[in-house]
């Protein structure tokens, strides 16, 4: 602290041309220590020795840190470390090094009580370079700032010292704040402008309504929708946009909404209506979203005119209703037609048979009771009546079977065609044991369908094969199928080596009452294949035939296939 020059030094004793630099140095009014590059003390000013409570003769030649160790009482002491670092920087860089204010306590001599005294220093180390540029000495200059630090710590000195600084800081702060505020406000303004732009140009009609039900904003689309300029909407109650009959309910629901505001669609499960300025009502969809504006709860209301959608929906509904009605009508017509067909078949079954029975019956009775009295060709004529009525009876039976195939429920069971075919062929063999027909039925032929109808199919096809091989030397009938996977249709074949037919007439094959052979060649009704085709068609399958005169015929028909599981169940 004490840095005044020692007044006791007699300057007059020093010659003017050869000043005593040692005296001058030692008397300099500053705190100086000169160190060698190995950090030993080479010289010290009186002021330095006084300030550090040391004696020159006791410290010259000694290591600086031996003389000035850290205060062992202060565990946070950094003096030795920081000073050594600074000095080494000087040695390394050969430039001056300014240290920050450093606490570096000073040992109190034993005779004065010992221990350490708290000191703060502001050190400055600068090199003295030799001719070769290496560091010859380091001048270590310090200022004792202990008092200043103490005052600062008390806050007195600081307040005085920083008064002006603080003003300056305040000014700067104000400026920074102002600038920041400008930026924030600009951002805010921009965001608000953007929001407003979005609101104004939204393709959705939007309104902002306050908790009192007043419209505070309305965008362009809303003005368009309600046919009223925005500025005329603003300030008016929301109710003007709602048909009067809904006012009470709306007010109730609106106040309810403000109690539990959340974004949601309005009027779930009921049709909403709004009213335009010109009084026109329109159906709409409304969505609500709460929003705080100026700290107050508002609701953003978006309104969509759904007139067109409603109209389209209504059209679809009408079309559907119409379609349904037409389907019902058509179904009823079909049912009526079916009904008619059924009564017709029933009538045929009952009413055509009775007179037939009478014709054949009385012919026979006549023959039996009066046969011996009939002359000439009378018996032949009676025979013809009986033959004709029998044939007509067969025709009626055939027609009935044909009509029965087109009505009634269609079974969907797995059917074993192999077993059916075997049985039919065995029956035919039993009825006509004289015929020697060879036949071969592939085992395991299954189809899904109506068992009785499929039996009719096989009975007709196998019956035909049987019939048309009558004139063949070695008649052969084969029943087989193509493989098919589940869910598909499987093709079945009934083939013979009989009379066959000319493919030119194949078109007539499946038409009722059309025959490709003369009655005296092969008798028949011409109903069988028509019936077969109907049955196959009802099962969703197809049927065709390949043949040539004298080459036999192969009938191919498809029926729904069945899976393995079905066959096992069967």
């Amino acid at each position, binding site marked *: 602290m004490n840095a005044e020059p020692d007044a006791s030094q007699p300057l007059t004793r020093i010659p003017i041309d050869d000043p005593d630099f040692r005296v001058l140095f030692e008397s300099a009014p500053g705190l100086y220590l000169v160190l060698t590059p190995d950090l030993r003390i080479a010289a010290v000013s009186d002021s330095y020795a006084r300030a550090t409570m040391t004696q020159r003769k006791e410290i010259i030649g000694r290591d600086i840190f031996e003389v000035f160790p850290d205060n062992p009482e202060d565990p946070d002491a950094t003096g030795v470390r920081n000073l050594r670092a600074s000095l080494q920087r000087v040695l390394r860089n050969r430039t001056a090094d300014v240290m920050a204010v450093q606490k570096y306590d000073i040992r109190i001599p034993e005779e004065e009580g010992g221990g350490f005294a708290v000191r703060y220093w502001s050190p400055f180390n600068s090199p003295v370079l030799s001719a070769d540029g290496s560091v010859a000495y380091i001048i270590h200059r310090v200022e004792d700032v202990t008092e200043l630090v103490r005052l600062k710590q008390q806050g007195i000195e600081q307040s005085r010292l920083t008064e002006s600084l603080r003003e300056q800081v305040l000014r700067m702060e104000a400026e920074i704040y102002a600038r920041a505020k400008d930026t924030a406000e600009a951002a805010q303004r921009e965001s608000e402008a953007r929001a407003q732009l979005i609101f104004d140009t939204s393709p959705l009609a939007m309104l902002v309504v306050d908790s009192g039900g007043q419209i505070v904003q309305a965008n362009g689309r809303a003005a368009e929708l309600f046919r009223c300029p925005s500025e005329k909407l603003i300030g008016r109650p929301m109710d003007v946009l709602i048909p009067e009959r809904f006012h009470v309910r709306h007010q109730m629901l609106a106040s309810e909404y403000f109690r539990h505001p959340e974004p949601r669609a309005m009027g779930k499960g009921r049709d909403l209506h709004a009213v335009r300025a010109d009084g026109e009502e329109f159906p709409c969809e409304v969505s609500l979203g709460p929003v705080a504006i100026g700290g107050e709860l508002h609701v953003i209301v978006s309104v969509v005119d759904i007139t067109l959608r409603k109209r389209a929906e209504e059209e679809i509904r009408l079309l559907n209703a119409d379609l349904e009605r037409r389907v019902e009508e058509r179904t009823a017509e079909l049912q009526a037609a079916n009904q008619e067909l059924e009564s017709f078949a*029933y009538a045929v*079954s*009952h*009413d055509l*048979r*009775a*007179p*037939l*029975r*009478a014709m*054949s*019956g*009385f*012919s*026979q*009775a006549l023959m039996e009771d009066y046969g011996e009295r009939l002359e000439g060709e009378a018996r032949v004529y009676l025979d013809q009546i*009986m033959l004709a009525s*029998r044939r007509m*009876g067969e025709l009626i*039976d055939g027609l*009935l079977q044909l009509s029965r195939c087109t009505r009634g429920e269609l079974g969907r069971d797995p059917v074993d065609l192999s077993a059916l075919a075997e049985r039919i062929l065995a029956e035919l063999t039993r009825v006509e044991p004289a015929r020697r027909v060879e036949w071969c039925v592939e085992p395991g032929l299954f189809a899904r369908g109506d068992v009785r109808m499929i039996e009719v199919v096989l009975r007709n096809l196998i019956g035909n094969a049987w019939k048309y091989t009558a004139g063949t030397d070695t008649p052969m009938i084969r029943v087989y199928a193509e493989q098919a996977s589940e869910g598909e249709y499987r093709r079945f074949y009934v083939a013979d080596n009989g009379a066959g037919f000319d493919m030119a007439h194949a078109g007539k094959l499946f038409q009722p009452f059309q025959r490709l052979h003369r009655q005296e060649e092969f008798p028949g009704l011409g109903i069988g294949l028509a019936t077969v085709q109907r049955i196959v068609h009802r099962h969703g399958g197809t049927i065709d035939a390949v043949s040539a005169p004298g080459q036999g015929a192969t009938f191919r028909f498809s029926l729904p296939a069945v899976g393995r599981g079905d066959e096992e169940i069967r």
Partner: protein
Amino acid sequence: MKAKTILLVEDNAQDEMLTLRALRRVNLANQVDVVRDGQQALDYVFREGEFATREGPDLPTVVLLDLNLPRIGGLEVLERLRADPRSRLVPVVILTSSDEERDRLGSYEHGANSFVRKPLDFTEFAETVARLGVYWLATNEPPWG
């Protein structure tokens, strides 16, 4: 021994003639009463209407019933016979031209004892009717003694 009768319910005169001829040939013709519709059949069985004063046994030994009848149809006649305690057990044979499944099942469901389709062939028809007559009058034991 009580007299045994067949009640033939048949609206077709030719079928009736052929039926009677067949029964005559097995000597049963004089035991047959013929009615022409369902109403007459019921009146006959219950001795009502025009049959209020008919003679003979209370119930026929067998009723040969056609289905396609004027006024009251065959199935309804059957139903009413089965519903009445007096005629509940009378044997009824349905004799019809129909070979419709619904007629066959309907007949059995309403309690028919037999269902016979009239054969189209006269010889067969005559044989069938004769067998029926013989069976129900001579072979079959009626429910009452």
